[in-house]
């Protein structure tokens, strides 16, 4: 089995028999194409997003060695020079008081064709939205913002952390140039002010909620309960990652992709 086919099998995206020929062609193109050059940039994050990437156990080695080139963050690069990249995965929010982080982010924007907010800290600020400084040894570090507040962000993968699967699927889509699959990630680049309250203001208040429970299932901190068929937010547990609203079937609806994935 080719690498791509194995990855697809792993992700439960096995091609339909009648489509096999087409898929093989895509793979061939993918294999002939230059590998995307990916950089990993770590700002104020917890490294959980990369840990999650590494939990693609069965395909990790292939992914990292055969499918993409990690050109920054893990391989030999000249100290002061960030290379040109096709995609920069930026983890963590950016501290406005930390000159280096701000400068580095600016440089990433210059060097990378696509800047991806990797994880909720980079995408929405996540729990660093609650930062307010005053702590030793750097009491001046107080303002943490999603990276889109400072630079143009092309796509976002929210999640605290994003699941291993969505990371692998995104990378595979990138390799295949599957822009249809990536469209929601492009749209989510603009979703920077996230909170569990969004379910109330953008779904329940808008007469859209149908009590399915997807939000509560998706919440990684278990900040949500279902109460009389509507989400009930425990704000003491909410980290403002935005996952609940992103997963809600009434926030955006990727019908074509779902039909495709189901073989319809």
């Amino acid at each position, binding site marked *: 089995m080719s690498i791509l086919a194995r990855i697809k099998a792993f992700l439960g995206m096995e091609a339909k028999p009648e489509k096999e020929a087409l898929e093989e062609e895509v793979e061939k193109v993918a294999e002939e194409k230059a590998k995307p050059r990916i950089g990993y940039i*770590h700002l*104020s994050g917890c490294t*959980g997003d990369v840990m999650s990437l590494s939990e693609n156990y069965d395909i990790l080695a292939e992914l990292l060695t055969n499918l993409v080139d990690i050109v920054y963050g893990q391989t030999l690069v000249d100290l002061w020079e960030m290379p040109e990249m096709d995609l920069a995965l930026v983890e963590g929010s950016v501290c406005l008081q930390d000159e280096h982080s701000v400068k580095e982010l600016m440089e990433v924007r210059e060097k990378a064709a696509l800047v991806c907010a990797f994880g909720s800290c980079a995408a929405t600020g996540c729990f660093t939205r609650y930062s307010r400084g005053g702590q*030793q*040894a750097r009491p001046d570090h107080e303002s943490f913002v999603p990276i889109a507040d400072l630079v143009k962000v092309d796509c976002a993968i929210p999640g605290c952390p994003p699941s291993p699967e969505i990371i692998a699927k995104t990378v595979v889509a990138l390799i295949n140039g599957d822009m249809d699959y990536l469209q929601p990630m492009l749209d989510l680049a603009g979703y920077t002010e996230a909170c569990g309250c969004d379910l109330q203001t953008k779904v329940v208040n808008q007469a859209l909620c149908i009590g399915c429970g997807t939000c509560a299932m998706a919440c990684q901190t*278990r900040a949500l309960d279902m109460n009389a068929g509507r989400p009930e937010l425990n704000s003491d547990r909410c980290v403002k990652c935005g996952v609940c609203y992103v997963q809600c079937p009434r926030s955006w609806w990727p019908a074509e992709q779902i039909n495709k994935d189901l073989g319809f």
Partner: protein
Amino acid sequence: MSERVVISPTSRQEGHAELVMEVDDEGIVTKGRYFSITPVRGLEKMLTGKAPESAPVYAQRICGVCPIPHTLASVEAMDDSLDIEIPKAARQMRELVLAAHDVNSHAIHHFLIAADFVPENLFATAVNSVSEIRKTAQYVVDMVAGEGIHPSDVRIGGMADNISEVARKKLYARCKALKPKVDAHVELIVGLVADKGLPAGLGVHNQPILTTDNLYGDRENFDLDRFTEIMPESWYDDAEIAKRACSTIPLYDGMNVEVGPRARAAKFRGFTEKGVVAQHVARAMEMKSALSKMIAILAELDTSAPVRADFDVRGTNKLGIGAIEGPRGLDVHMAQVANGKTQFYSCLVPTTWNIPTMGPATEGFHHEFGPHVIRAYDPCLSCATHVIVVDDEDRSVIKNEMVRI
């Protein structure tokens, strides 16, 4: 002419921590300083004034590599402040989660040091071995603690839910099946570290060790009166470094200490070796102890027992302490709750304890071994680093070599 060798994770721009070594003409380190330059997100201040329930949720996000010890130290500090006695099954589940995390985390460390120790022909074997072990260990964390990376279900007063009997049996069978694999893995790693032929005495220092328990952690063995914390300004004799350093310096009996698997092995398992090789051996061997503990707990966990105690969340402002032996060493969180709100919160994370010890531990050997010394502590910096040697006179980079911390 004295030179400075600076090892900085990936570069100034991606800074996490830096190792600055002064070296003599032979390249031997005469003075080592290691410090963190990660921006301070201010978790302790963030949590002050919030509901106690927020503490473990935010605290686990200190680090995605070792979130479990932070979560456990956080809930234990809260349990202590609120005077909660957690049910037996909850305690077993917490111990199970930490043991699984130890196995996972030590395996990750082996992945990170593979470039140093694993010869080309064994590389795939080692990496696959790591992945296989991690998969099972994380499966346990997912099921028992709700989420594998930021565990949602470790709660003040115990755990959110017990697991089902089906889950217990499944986990027990998988952990048992993992045992021969872990044994083989440990043998492989210990052998490879020995084969490397690192100089005898590398990384040996005279600082005391600090540990509270064989595997889980015990607040009774952490004496707050013997603990002091100073600012980098009064620790580093280099003003520039002191200013850039982002973590405080914790001391025990006025001294910097070593925490971690070697410290635990020395105090509780009769292990007498010291230095870099000893740290790797102790860490690898600990995977076996942790897995045995997982199997033992899974054999006897009562899945119908309650796992969460009732408690009064108002609190009396008692200073609660959570002391957890994380993979990288003692992780202490302190919390005070009164009027239902967290009044004070503080964390002494494992790498912070080791930071003032790691630098001096590089002294007396060639600076090329510096990264080996640092990596032996498995500092919580999973990112790649460069070694550069900066000429003091014109500050040009005279050597640039990739290392991985």
